[in-house]
């Protein structure tokens, strides 16, 4: 028979997964809106963000209460500490999604640019990283989480490549600098989402194996 505390931990996990699903939906919609140049979707993305913000407060509140009342130890403690951090990271991702949606207005109304295909390749990898990070949390799968972390450098390289392409555009067609800057911001926000997915995976590894891999802590220790 599960203890009441175990049920409470499962409730927290369910809420976090619900929040992650909203973040995924928000990012998919903001990128879709950008691709289709559909500013009408920006309002929907803001509405999702309000729900994400509410969940963030609710999850944090649940974790604080469980820590105060049950004084958890071992993997229970690591789960709650990790969840508090993931909760924060997911909420930031929601904000980055709103930032991408905010670029829409200028992209639609400003001078039109040729499609920056690099952005969409980057977006595909970032969405996969987020999906895999959430899956690794659901399955408590440290090996899968580790693989997500390894993809972060690919996204960093793609962002640098995107910056180079956009700089060339700006030099060649200075009248489109405004639109190019919006795409630069999109690339920056995507790169941050990838970083935050990596943070989530670092927390999954901490929860599953009590290993701290962020900032190359293990290599520095040895």
């Amino acid at each position, binding site marked *: 028979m599960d*203890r009441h*505390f175990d049920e409470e931990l499962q409730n927290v996990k369910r809420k976090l997964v619900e929040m992650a699903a909203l973040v995924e939906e928000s990012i998919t919609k903001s990128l879709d809106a950008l691709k289709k140049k559909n500013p009408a979707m920006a309002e929907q993305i803001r509405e999702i963000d309000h729900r994400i913000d509410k969940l963030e407060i609710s999850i944090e509140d649940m974790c604080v209460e469980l820590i105060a009342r049950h*004084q*958890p*130890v*071992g*993997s*229970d*403690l*690591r789960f709650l500490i990790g969840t508090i951090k993931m909760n924060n990271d997911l909420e930031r991702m929601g904000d980055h999604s709103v930032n991408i949606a905010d670029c829409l207005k200028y992209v639609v109304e400003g001078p039109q640019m040729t499609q920056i295909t690099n952005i969409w390749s980057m977006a595909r990898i970032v969405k996969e990283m987020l999906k895999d990070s959430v899956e690794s949390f659901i399955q408590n799968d440290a090996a899968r989480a580790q693989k997500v972390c390894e993809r972060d450098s690919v996204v960093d390289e793609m962002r640098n490549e995107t910056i180079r392409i956009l700089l060339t555009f700006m030099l060649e067609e200075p009248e489109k600098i405004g639109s190019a800057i919006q795409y630069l911001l999109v690339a920056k926000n995507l790169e941050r989402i990838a970083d935050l997915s990596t943070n989530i995976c670092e927390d999954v590894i901490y929860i599953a194996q*009590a290993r701290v891999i962020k900032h190359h802590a293990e290599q520095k220790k040895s």
Partner: protein
Amino acid sequence: MIITTANLNLYYHKFQALKNVNMDIRRNLITGIIGPSGCGKSTLLRVFNRMNELIEGVRITGSVLIDNEDIYSPLHDLILLRKRVGMVFQRPNAFPLSIFDNVAYGPRVWNISDKKTLTEIVERSLIAVDLFDNLKDRLQAPALSLSAEKQQRLCIARLLAVEPEILLMDEPCSALDPIATGKIEELMLELKKMYTIIIVTHNMQQAARIADEVGFMLLGELVEFDTAKTVFTNPRDKRTFDYISGRFG
């Protein structure tokens, strides 16, 4: 290491209360021993000052070294051992004597009778447990008139008066309220600078708060022995996790 046990087994007649316990207790740390009732933690504590020998039918195999000396060697001085290794019990056991005479009791056993020396020892011991300022004007008052927490402090002062190296504490706060418990815990953290402390406790949070190293015992076996940080954040053995997280015990 101040204490090392190797292949330690203890039997009460046919019942085996300790099973092959191997542990190294480090100097000037607080070592917490946790585990469910009847797991052998108090028995283990009493091994370190040979108090189990007072119980009929006890048989011990293996070795227990304190400062590399086998305390179960027939040549070992038992009186000296009890001086080096003092013990605090669950309930404060102040003697029905004055506060002064309680603290001076041990030194008198050791033939110290000079009034000035005894006064110095009593003062030093009461200062160490933070009782002196409070009691200095009524050292002749009966010890049993003190609160439970102050009696427990007095018992600790009584130990310190004979200058031990190791303090064994068997659930020293179980008869105290949370505020008194907090004060005794603060005292333990002060005392570990001078002494090695081994505490048996049922209170998991107490072990988490004050112990540097923690041993988890189950059915006479030392299941896990590690730093408190490891035991409470990443226990290696599932039985330890199940116990400290309240899943059994």
